[in-house]
């Protein structure tokens, strides 16, 4: 929440002084998100039950709903790539929500985190496409008409390289903007001004995580389905 300040005092600054590692804040908040998710996973793994209750119920609702959505869009093949998609969604969602805790900052409010994730997505969907189609994957870049193929090859290359860029900047711009708005409203009207914005930003951060997830799904669909 303190990303907009010139010298933000967040918990990560204090931790960094204690540890003396000189790492930027978003690394600590990414680790925090990982710790939260890993501990949830380890707690749940120990006591999985047939009739879910509590935390298991929450995760089953989210993951089950997302799996239905993916299978509806990609088809049965979607189940193979679903762990990656769902992991991405939950990871981004947790990192976004961490930004709402006072004194914490969203790891996704830094362009490096998002670039890393977007490049992972780029490599992954191309890997899936090459694994499925072999050398024939290049047909995805050729377009439908044979004599336009050289032009389409360049156009598709530009389009594919633009994908990680737009993924990165969209997530970064939205989350960073929300963090700055929170700080500004806190300066204008402490607490009273920020609480209404929390409801809006919980919605906004969920939608941003969902957009990242959905675009990854569309790209994977494009590399899995037959070329034109």
């Amino acid at each position: 929440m303190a990303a907009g300040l010139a010298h933000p005092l967040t918990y990560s600054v204090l931790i960094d002084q204690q540890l003396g590692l000189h790492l930027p804040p978003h690394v600590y908040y990414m680790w925090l998100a990982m710790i939260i998710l890993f501990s949830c996973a380890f707690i749940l793994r120990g006591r999985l039950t047939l009739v879910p209750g509590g935390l298991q119920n929450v995760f089953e609702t989210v993951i089950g709903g997302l799996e239905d959505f993916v299978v509806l869009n990609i088809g049965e093949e979607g189940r193979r790539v679903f762990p990656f998609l769902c992991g991405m969604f939950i990871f981004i969602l947790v990192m976004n929500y961490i930004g709402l805790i006072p004194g914490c900052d969203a790891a996704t409010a830094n362009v490096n985190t998002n670039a890393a994730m977007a490049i992972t997505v780029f490599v992954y969907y191309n890997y899936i496409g090459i694994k499925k189609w072999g050398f024939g994957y290049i047909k995805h870049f050729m377009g439908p008409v044979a004599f336009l193929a050289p032009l389409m090859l360049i156009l598709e290359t530009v389009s594919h390289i633009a994908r990680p860029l737009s993924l990165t900047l969209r997530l970064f711009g939205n989350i960073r903007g929300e963090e700055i708005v929170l700080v500004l409203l806190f300066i204008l009207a402490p607490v009273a001004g920020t609480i209404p914005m929390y409801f809006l930003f919980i919605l906004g951060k969920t939608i941003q995580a969902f957009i990242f997830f959905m675009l990854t799904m569309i790209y994977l669909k494009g590399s899995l389905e037959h070329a034109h």
Partner: protein
Amino acid sequence: MFFSRQDKSSGHMGVLGTVGTIGMQLVAATFVGLAMGYFLDKWLGTDPWLLIIFLLLGIVTGFRDVYREAMRLQRRSEEEGSGPGAGTR
């Protein structure tokens, strides 16, 4: 909260997501074309020409992506409007 009525709300979120991507894709493709032209020029030493050509190609790519996305949205809304199970999906 968004997943309690997953069937309906994921459709709305999907449309919102697609609409949100359109403008970004246009800008990103333009800049990628510009950057490719710039670095190819630096590499090959053909000063302004590849920059201009690749910038135009980037703009064309951006518009083509937007067009394709809009067509996909339209097709989906037609499917949802005319299909018998439009409300339940």
